[in-house]
């Protein structure tokens, strides 16, 4: 099966076939014949000839993965051709959703619905672990919607406000 992936920001293409323990892979034209064991969930023990790699993989978001390997931590995005869909869900032209970069509590609103904002102006303040973070509008426009109130608990990536 063919995959497109992005590893630490670099685009690569991978072809991979797996039959039980044996995996044949072609990464950007480099061929790997591997034996792969899975001693724990999310842990891949990969034998490349006599070289052995312990890789730990976990997912942060739907198609974004973190892989820890020896002294390195990689972030990888895997797009399989079959499940490929438009990622432009919430980035339609002219509309901008302000999202919480971290889970936390809304401390206060700096703007109200209907306010005009400049690019870089703060709209909502979210606090977690004694640190406050101002969520700024990345473009100029009007706040058409504020979806949270002071005191609300929010999740990471939750939409706080919409600027048009």
């Amino acid at each position, binding site marked *: 099966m063919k995959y497109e992936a992005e590893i630490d920001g670099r685009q*690569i293409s991978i072809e991979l076939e797996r039959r039980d323990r044996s995996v044949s892979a072609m990464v950007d034209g480099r061929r790997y014949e591997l034996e792969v064991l899975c001693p724990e969930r999310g842990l891949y023990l*990969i034998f490349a000839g006599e070289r052995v790699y312990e*890789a730990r993989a976990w997912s942060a978001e739907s198609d974004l993965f973190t892989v820890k390997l020896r002294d390195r931590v990689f972030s990888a995005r*895997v797009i399989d051709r079959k499940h490929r869909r438009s990622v432009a869900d919430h980035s339609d032209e002219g509309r901008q959703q302000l999202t919480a970069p971290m889970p936390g509590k809304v401390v206060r609103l700096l703007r109200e619905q209907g306010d005009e904002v400049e690019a870089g102006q703060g709209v909502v303040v979210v606090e*977690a672990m*004694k*640190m406050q973070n101002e969520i700024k509008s990345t473009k100029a426009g009007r706040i058409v919607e504020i979806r949270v109130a002071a005191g609300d608990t929010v999740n990471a990536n939750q939409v706080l406000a919409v600027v048009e």
Partner: protein
Amino acid sequence: MFKKLLIANRGEIAVRIVRACREMGVSPVAVYSSADQSALHVRLADEAIHIGPAPSSESYLVIEKIIAAAKRTGAEAIHPGYGFLSENAEFALAVESAGLTLIGPPASAMKIMGSKTSARRAAIEAGAPVVPGTTQPLASVEEAEALAATTGYPVMLKAAAGGGGRGMRLVRSPAEIASAFSLARSEAEASFKDSSVYIEKYIERPRHIEIQLIGDREGDFVYLGERECSLQRRHQKVVEECPSPVVDEEMRRRVGESAVRVARAAGYVNAGTVEFLVDREKNFYFLEMNTRLQVEHPITELVTGRDLVHEQIRVAAGERLSFSQDDIIMRGAAIECRIYAEDPQNDFLPSPGLIKRLSMPSGPGVRIDSGIYEGWKVPLDYDSLLAKLCVWAETREAAINRLARALDECAIEGIQTTLEFFRAVSRDREFRLGNFDTGFIDRFLADGMKTDNPEGEDDRDAQLSDIAAIAAVLHAKERAAKLDLSSAQAVESRWKLYGRISQRR
């Protein structure tokens, strides 16, 4: 010795103190907020008292609730840990008047050291060198201008009640002082409800070292060497080591004796830390005294072989110090990394949440002080310190190699942590050489945490990156298979339901 001791704290430090209690045959009592009922410090205690809802202002910071919990369980002493009420003189008085013992200094010493200006006065009286500047709050801009001119630019304006870098302003020229003065005052007022500001000579590229000491009630003091704490981000320590790469035996004695004089002058008892700035000519200046156990105390324990928490408890129980100055021998080198729930790739934003998997390093010379476990949900209400990784080895170089090794064995899944950042620091050339000052981390981050690859490493990197990509694809496949399976089951059950509905018709 006490039979029962209450720990007025949470997280890794509460666990640290529970361990000391167990080792000494003292029964540990935990307190917890609603967010912490299944926290590690509660799991390890003999008794646990609920002291309120998650916000610390309604739980860990409420003096009456802590005292009531001690009374109710019959604990004779309270260990405050660090943070929360640990440097609160009012709390120290309340503990005393309730007939309990605080594992820490008397309220009077906390008060002297609690204000930067009175601490400076105490240090000057004790004959300790201080950064040139004032000991009284500045009355006006004119006074600030006059004093800055005599001290010589650059100068620092600092909040008298300050800490953690707030209410501090660097002033490089006379043109900047008026606006800096009003900014520092308003920031000090907002942060500490006290607008007093004083002036100090600014030390360029200083190092930050601190002396660990402990005193008993008879007035005997011992200093346990220094810790190097120059690696800071936004004035918060992130990596500490013991001993400092720039302090020799002779300097250690001079700084140590100076620290003891300051502590003695303040009527200090129990464990405390005196902080100094060191300039490039190795002149040292008193900065402040922390009147509690420090986060980074384990590295001193590793190098001196003394258990500071045991000693704290013994001294508080009225015993004499169990060692003298001559008994303190600095052996090898130790380094601590503070593992925070923060995302180094995203401006160190906090990252609370569920710890899905946890694997911690072990082996020779590794010590972990942790407040977390696999399956624990890190609350968003408290500071982001998860655990401390400390290593010890015969030399500084060996300790750094061991640190890099231990960091590579570490994995915390589910939340973002500063582990990756430490991996980069431990391989940085300047860090390895011991060439740094308090500005190191900011410069390191500005350079994008880049480490210099030894020769031939590029090939290895390419291969590692391929293997990582393969692992990511394998994981994605496995997850997709699981998802397909569950959605297939969902579809099937809908069909079954539909079938039943049709049959009934």
